[in-house]
């Protein structure tokens, strides 16, 4: 009896052992690559942050390590020059007593960015454009995805593929014909032109994402809703959007990112600074010929990156939560 039991147990133990071992190796390998990726992706933002704490003089100083934030403030280093030099140095002097050098440098960059450039206007314009683009995108993409993903009609499959194909045309090719279109509509040099043009990037991809999410919803759910007396609009708003919320949020995040970070279109269509957005505005106002104001550029980039970060962090919980759990037998 015992002999038989061991005979049966022995190979099983060896088997679980090998599973454990291969699992350990898989873990080690995945940690290795995850750490590698984390370093790869975190170095640029770190470098931004370190540079944003320095003045132009500190940045061009060959004797300091460019990888470290400003450690000490050489007095002359905190004189960024320009029209507001006196004001800035006054401000820094008042905080001299308690602020560490890095914070003082960063603060100087921020105040200068906010007071001497049109950065606040760019930020406002970007926010307006992005909010409008997200709204327009979702108003088009959600119903489009619903009809393409759920209501079978002649050509719906081909249309869905076609929608995705339009996304594959890069904006660096599209901006020339679109320039004519935007110009023809009299929207050149106006951020309203961007509100019109950005959805050409965001709508196809958002539609594509949501077609996938909508198709993953079990067919019986809309049949149950149909029998319960819902029409297609009610089905969309009361069943599909709530159930596919992770997909809708993923699409929203995408539309937000596309329109927040778009570069080619504003660069091509906008030229006066009261209409510019963050990406193009930062470059045009902080890079003059071959003079790069690196401290302010990095500060601007960091501030510009903050809203997407906040939104990701806020929506990530919804994004991950599997809301379809429990709808049907898993």
């Amino acid at each position: 009896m015992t002999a038989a039991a061991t005979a049966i147990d022995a190979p099983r133990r060896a088997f679980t052992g090998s599973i454990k071992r291969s699992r350990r190796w898989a873990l080690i390998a995945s940690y290795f690559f995850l750490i590698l990726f984390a370093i790869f992706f975190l170095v640029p933002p770190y470098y931004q942050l370190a540079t944003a704490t320095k003045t132009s003089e500190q940045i061009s100083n060959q004797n300091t390590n460019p990888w470290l934030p400003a450690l000490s403030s050489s007095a002359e280093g905190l004189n960024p020059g320009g029209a507001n030099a006196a004001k800035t140095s006054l401000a820094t002097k008042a905080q001299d007593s308690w602020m560490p050098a890095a914070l003082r440098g960063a603060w100087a960059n921020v105040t200068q960015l906010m007071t001497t450039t049109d950065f606040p206007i760019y930020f406002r314009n970007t926010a307006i454009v992005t909010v409008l683009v997200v709204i327009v995108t979702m108003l088009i993409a959600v119903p489009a995805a619903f009809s393409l993903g759920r209501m079978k009609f002649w050509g719906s499959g081909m249309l869905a593929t076609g929608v995705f194909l339009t996304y594959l045309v890069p904006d660096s090719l599209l901006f020339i014909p679109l320039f004519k279109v935007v110009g023809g509509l009299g929207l050149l040099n106006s951020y309203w032109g961007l509100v019109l043009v950005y959805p050409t990037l965001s709508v196809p991809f958002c539609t594509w994402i949501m077609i996938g999410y909508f198709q993953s919803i079990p067919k019986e759910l809309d049949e149950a809703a149909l029998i319960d007396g819902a029409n297609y609009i009610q089905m969309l708003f009361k069943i599909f959007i709530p159930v596919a919320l992770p997909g809708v949020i993923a699409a929203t995040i995408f539309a937000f990112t596309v329109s927040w970070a778009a570069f080619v279109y504003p660069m091509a269509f906008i030229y006066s600074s009261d209409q510019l957005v963050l990406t193009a505005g930062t470059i045009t106002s902080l890079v003059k010929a071959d003079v790069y104001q690196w401290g302010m550029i990095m500060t601007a980039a960091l501030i510009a990156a903050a809203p997407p970060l906040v939104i990701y962090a806020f929506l990530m919980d919804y994004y991950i939560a599997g809301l379809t759990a429990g709808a049907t037998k898993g």
Partner: protein
Amino acid sequence: MANVALRKVVKMYDRTEAVRGIDLDIADKEFIVLVGPSGCGKSTTLRMIAGLEEVTGGEIFIGGDLVNDVPPKDRDIAMVFQNYALYPHMTVFENMSFGLRLKKYPKAEIKSRVDNAARILGITELLDRRPRQLSGGQRQRVAMGRAIVRNPKVFLFDEPLSNLDAKLRVQMRTEIKKVHQTVKTTTVYVTHDQVEAMTLADRVVVMNSGVIEQLGTPQELYHSPKTRFVAGFIGSPAMNFAPCTLAEAAGGGLSARLSEGLSFKIPVSRTQRYKPFVGRELIFGLRPEHIIERRGELRPDCQEFGITVDVVEPMGMETMVYFLVDGSEVCARVNPAAAGEPGQQMRLVAELGNMHLIDPQTDAVI
């Protein structure tokens, strides 16, 4: 409360016919079960009654109204799906009241209806939970609750118990029967499980490849199947079939010869019916429960015969004994005490009053 009628209903998918001209009358408050193997068209038929599939040909009436072109929501039906189809983002209360809320019923009315349905199903304490917090059986109850609160003309069930484990399935089966006895609504129920069909139905519709093979009460289907398919489909374990030749017996009457050494004497009451088939190759059918061990005196129309046991399957309260008759495997249902060992000789009794003869050319029971 309504009757349902199907007239020559046809459903085509591209060029294949899923349902091939079905006529069916379902009385008010009747519990009808459509049963058959997968792909027989039973679910398609149900979905056409629900309005989820377009009718290719024929007419469907609910409560006397032609509903071919009426959308599902206006047919006044409720459906319970195999995978429950609960709305995952709503609580049980919201799930059950969804249809009523869409129809803008007053709040108090909705609450009383949901409470009532929840009481019938014993899910009152679950009303605030979400579907993912429920077990399979509880989800199934909620799905039924969603149907009950609507107080529809017809209940449609599409294999509602297939996703439950065996024990829960039996329990919920009883539950469904109880609910039907309480609510008394016309019900069409689709299943591939013939036990479910027999236990639940007032009348069973056996379907096969898009047509109705037979319609009848569970007892009718069991005792007088009309085709070989129904004979083999209804009953578990399935009816035994063995080829035989029908011949005139020496002392008058008829006998079915199954093999060199085994002939069964046909009961006198059947002689007239079978006479035209004398000399023909037929299929002899007899259920396992009608091949038993000898219990005292041989009753009329019973015949004792000897076999060699092939396989023995103890079930507890009875034992299945398998043996070969001229190459065909035959199952007998005997008392555990009487069952022999594989390879042993055994005497069994065939209750020939329950036998069937099938014409292999038409597959009809004669």
